[in-house]
């Protein structure tokens, strides 16, 4: 069967009543959490994973993916109207979006944001469709050494790329990997760090930890200061951009798609980095760079397109290699594994219905999102007015039910609260949670592949350098670390010189 035939099969799968409903629920929840500052896609996906237990795997993945790319649409609404990003991926959109709203152009800003997201989302789905199968075929040659190096590369990239301290990120990744080792050893069945607890013998569950670190920790941070937010008062009669807006934003949208999709593929690239790249590129290419930040349409078109394109791009390594490039994809991998499916080189061959069904659902989901975010924008703005004090007890309620319903085990609630409080404390001390969760998901895979590699090589660690793909990945890790070190020294010297002046 050719790609077109598979795509038709995908649409056949996605167009069933259940899957259409799952897609709608996913994108609607995604938009909702994107609009509401204080809960992100990771926490939401973690809470909803137990609910997907009773669902068919395709419907579950369609819904969870919908939450992810739906959140990219919703995130810009608060950036434009409140100057507060609903999601971290919409930080850049505050710069010009809020300025446009102040000038009375909130409608076109929201409009171009939704249209850019739609174009970026749709085009990148085609990229995902074209790139994943050949990459999956290439990955068929991967043995344990290559897989180990790839996972190490992914964890290192997520830990390295970010504004915070590299040491703190690496501590979080090490801790995450340690937590993943609690329970019975995958190979020998030996019990590790269980304190003779039956709950811990099964290992520390991904859902309680993710809900704790991304749901509860977020709530605890937000309830410290519960301030009333003022929503920008504006009319939404004219959401459609003018002809001039179109003219100014079509090239940024196309460039944002390319930038977003390809950075999204890189482990650690995520959906935040592409928005900064896209904005930077537009500013550099612009004939009037001084106008960026004053409320111009290009400043919102490029980053909003890029984050949506990146959300599809980041699915490429997950589907083709089985390695999530960032924490949201790690949650999706967790969902796959809970449903007994391992994404990776054989995934497309063995589960073509799921792969193509999800791709087709993303096309449908993007159309749904366009409708949800253009004609129905008023609903989301009204939701924005719900005060946080009325909202946070409900978020806690959903967290509790989500975690408990997983295994009907109240001990997992204690685990959730423990990781929630720990996440809160670590967040206050600027320790990022993403490397922790990614390492936790990938830890067992990494250990198994490492031990298998050592058995194959009879204890010779040179196996990781003898194999070309593995060697290239390890060299890349080394280069990234060297670059970061050099950058740090340069920055420090610059600071000292400035201070001396």
């Amino acid at each position, binding site marked *: 069967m050719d790609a077109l035939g598979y795509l038709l099969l995908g649409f056949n799968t996605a167009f069933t009543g259940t899957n259409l409903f799952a897609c709608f629920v996913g994108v609607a929840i995604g938009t909702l959490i994107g609009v509401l500052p204080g809960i992100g896609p990771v926490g939401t996906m973690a809470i909803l994973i137990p*609910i997907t237990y009773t669902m068919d795997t395709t419907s579950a993945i369609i819904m969870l993916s919908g939450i992810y790319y739906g959140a990219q649409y919703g995130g810009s609404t608060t950036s434009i109207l409140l100057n507060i990003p609903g999601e971290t991926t919409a930080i850049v959109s505050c710069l010009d979006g809020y300025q446009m709203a102040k000038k009375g152009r909130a409608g076109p800003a929201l409009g171009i944001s939704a249209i850019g997201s739609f174009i970026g989302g749709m085009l990148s789905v085609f990229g995902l469709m074209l790139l994943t199968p050949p990459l999956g075929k290439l990955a068929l040659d991967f043995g344990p050494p290559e897989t180990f190096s790839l996972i190490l590369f992914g964890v290192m990239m997520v830990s390295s790329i970010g504004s915070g301290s590299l*040491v703190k990120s690496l501590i979080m990744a090490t*801790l995450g990997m*340690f937590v993943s080792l609690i329970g019975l050893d995958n190979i020998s069945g030996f019990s590790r760090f269980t304190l003779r607890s039956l709950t811990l013998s099964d290992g520390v569950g991904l859902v309680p930890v993710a809900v704790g670190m991304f749901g509860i920790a977020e709530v605890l941070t937000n309830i410290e200061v519960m301030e009333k937010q003022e929503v920008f008062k504006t009319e939404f009669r004219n959401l459609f951009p003018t002809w001039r807006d179109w003219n100014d934003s079509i090239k940024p949208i196309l460039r944002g798609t390319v930038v977003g999709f390809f950075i999204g593929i890189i482990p650690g690239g995520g959906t935040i980095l592409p928005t900064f790249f896209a904005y930077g590129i537009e500013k550099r290419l612009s004939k009037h760079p001084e106008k960026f930040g004053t409320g111009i349409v290009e400043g919102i078109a490029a980053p909003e397109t890029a984050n949506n394109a990146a959300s599809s791009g980041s699915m490429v390594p997950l589907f083709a290699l089985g390695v999530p490039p960032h924490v949201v994809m790690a949650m999706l991998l967790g969902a796959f594994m809970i449903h007994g499916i391992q994404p990776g080189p054989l995934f497309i061959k063995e589960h073509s219905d799921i792969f193509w069904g999800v791709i087709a659902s993303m096309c449908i989901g993007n159309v749904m999102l366009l409708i949800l975010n253009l004609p129905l924008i008023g609903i989301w703005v009204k939701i924005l007015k719900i005060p946080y004090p009325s909202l946070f007890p409900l978020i806690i*309620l959903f967290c509790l039910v989500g975690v408990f319903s997983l295994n009907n085990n109240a001990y997992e*609630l204690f685990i959730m*609260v423990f990781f929630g409080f720990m996440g809160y404390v670590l967040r206050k001390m600027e320790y990022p949670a993403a490397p922790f969760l990614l390492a936790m998901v990938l830890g067992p895979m990494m250990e198994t592949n490492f031990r298998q590699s050592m058995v194959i090589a009879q*204890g010779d660690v040179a196996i990781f350098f003898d194999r070309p793909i593995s060697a290239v990945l390890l060299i890349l890790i080394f280069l990234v670390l060297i670059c970061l070190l050099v950058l740090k020294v340069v920055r420090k010297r610059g600071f000292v010189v400035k201070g001396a002046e």
Partner: protein
Amino acid sequence: MAIVWILLGLTISIWSATFPFGGRKAPGPGFLPLILGLILMLLGSILLFKAIKREEGDPIGAPIPFVSAQASLTRVVLATGGMLAAAALLHPLGFFSTIFCLMFFLKYSLQPQRLKVAVIYALLSALGSSVLFRSLLKTPLPGGFLGF
């Protein structure tokens, strides 16, 4: 915090040493945890070194205050305590009663609120979640001694 990481790394390393270590040809279940413990100790030491250097007058990376001026740590402690209590009471008290108590506690104690409003909010939350999860989504939830 650096000392916490060093101590945790040390604990993990010592604990891992009690597991079968295997050899290079076939690493056992104690191999990776031991490595991780050592890495944690190393990273903790780097942080400690940086902290000492900062105290000696390095202008970069001044320590940040744990809780901002207007912030209320009390709310955080109360919310955490409420969740722990809910986890402990879920089985004996049942889902509906536990959620009612938790919602009332969160709404009433964490923010200035009229008693009536808090009770109605808690009742609606408990009722709504029971209908949604128990009746619609068929999630098995504990009934407690009251049976609901």
